[in-house]
């Protein structure tokens, strides 16, 4: 497997440049007050009606309101509605389907979550109006974050059926995106079934994230249906999808591996035991459909990896975790049968 190089990575544009056209004048002024270092840390911007706008880096506010009071922006209800309409491209009818998922994708893969009054139809959320708050989430792709995982999920360049799991917020989606990019750069045909538009962050069908030169994306499509469709139409070498959880997902994964495509999927689970207890992943584990299981820790660190027969092939040493917060890239030389779900 060829390792990613700097030249292969799509150049990243500063989020301030990408989003500039969407921001109201007052918010733009606040954003422009940020230092370069702070701007690089920003994770989201929160705008609520009649409340001061906040620029966040994780849990920390970086908008310097304590220092520069003139930069304080307290939007009115109309300001928030207008901002929301701008994010929707003044074409709400066209983004209603996306909005039903709670957010819309912006250029650069950034996403805007909107809150307002939900209008129900037949007891289901149909659309939203009277927007009262906006959460602008800054997308920050991490090209190369899958460098350490690639040797574990390939065998002499052949992609292996892999399940990546972790607790929420550990970077499974970011990892899947970089796996897709690296497989695509290695000359494989990659198919992504992106039910929630999170992996490739498609906007009007075009991936906003770098997912590689030979990657096809089926956007906003149900995973199981999408996987079958992708197999039938594009015959990918690697099929990637996020957060499996329905019974039909397991069937589709089984079908894909029978068709010769390697499947790389992710699931929420804090441990292998939890994975086993979940209905869908439990079935996959019992069927032994997969060849690799990889557990991620905080910030996308690879904690542990198992082969298809649940022998541990890699485990981060406690010492390296304490000392550097990063994992030891050398896979464990011996297979340690540790977990048998059967």
């Amino acid at each position: 497997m060829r390792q990613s190089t700097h030249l292969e990575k799509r150049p990243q544009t500063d989020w301030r440049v990408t989003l500039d056209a969407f921001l109201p004048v007052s918010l733009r002024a606040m954003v422009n007050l940020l230092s370069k270092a702070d701007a690089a840390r920003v994770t989201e911007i929160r705008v609520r009606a009649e409340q001061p706008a906040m620029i966040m880096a994780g849990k920390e506010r970086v908008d310097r309101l304590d220092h520069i009071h003139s930069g304080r922006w307290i939007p009115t209800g109309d300001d928030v509605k207008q901002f929301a309409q701008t994010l929707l491209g003044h074409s709400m009818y066209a983004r209603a389907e996306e909005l039903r998922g709670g957010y819309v994708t912006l250029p650069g893969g950034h996403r805007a979550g909107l809150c307002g009054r939900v209008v129900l139809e037949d007891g289901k959320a149909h659309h939203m109006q009277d927007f009262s708050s906006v959460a602008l989430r800054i997308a920050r792709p991490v090209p190369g974050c899958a460098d350490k995982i690639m040797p574990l999920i390939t065998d002499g360049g052949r992609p292996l059926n892999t399940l990546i799991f972790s607790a929420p917020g550990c970077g499974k989606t970011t990892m899947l995106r970089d796996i897709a990019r690296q497989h695509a750069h290695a000359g494989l045909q990659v198919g992504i079934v992106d039910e929630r538009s999170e992996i490739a962050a498609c906007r009007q069908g075009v991936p906003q994230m770098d997912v590689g030169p030979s990657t096809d994306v089926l956007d906003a499509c149900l995973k199981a249906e999408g996987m079958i469709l992708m197999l039938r139409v594009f015959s990918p070498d690697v099929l990637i999808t996020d957060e499996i959880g329905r019974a039909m997902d397991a069937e589709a994964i089984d079908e894909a591996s029978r068709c010769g495509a390697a499947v790389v999927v992710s699931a929420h689970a804090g441990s292998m035991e939890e994975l086993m207890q979940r209905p869908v992943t439990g079935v996959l584990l019992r069927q032994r459909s997969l060849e690799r299981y990889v557990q991620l820790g905080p910030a996308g660190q690879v904690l542990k990896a198992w082969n298809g027969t649940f022998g541990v092939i890699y485990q981060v040493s406690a010492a390296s975790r304490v000392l550097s917060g990063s994992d030891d890239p050398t896979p464990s030389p011996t297979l340690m049968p540790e977990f048998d779900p059967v």
Partner: protein
Amino acid sequence: MNMMRLAFAGAAAGGCALMGMGMARRLVRREEAIAAWSRLLDGLAAQLSYVDDPLPDVLSRLTVSDAPGDARLSSVIEEAVDNMCRDRTLSFSDALDTERAFADMDASDAATLLPLVRELGTTARPQQTARLDSARASLASMAARAADMTARQKRLYVSLGLLGGLALFICLVG
């Protein structure tokens, strides 16, 4: 002196006749403007029923017929689309030069269309469709009234202008 009187009377009479024809022309232009808006909204409703493209894309795709009112309206719409593309914070109503868009219409026509202009793109599809349908229905009745008014009053204004001009000429010369 007589020649000057004749010339002045001729100019005044011509002016009077032109005024009559101008008033008739305004009726025709209003009818054309209503028809142009009607065709625009028909096209928009048809597009919105099956496409999910952003409003500027939809508007720029609408075909323009050879009808006289269409060229005037489409240039205003094109300008609004350009404004929306240049400044993403502008809504359709902010981007549209309403004075030019409703230039040939009377105040009540503009008042009928303004709610639609303000709401275009800002609501979900069912509301957009309902608003469009309501505006199209209003335009249909406005178009019928305008056609009726044109048929009745166009000749009247032209005749009044010509007769007034003639009367003025006779008064000034006689």
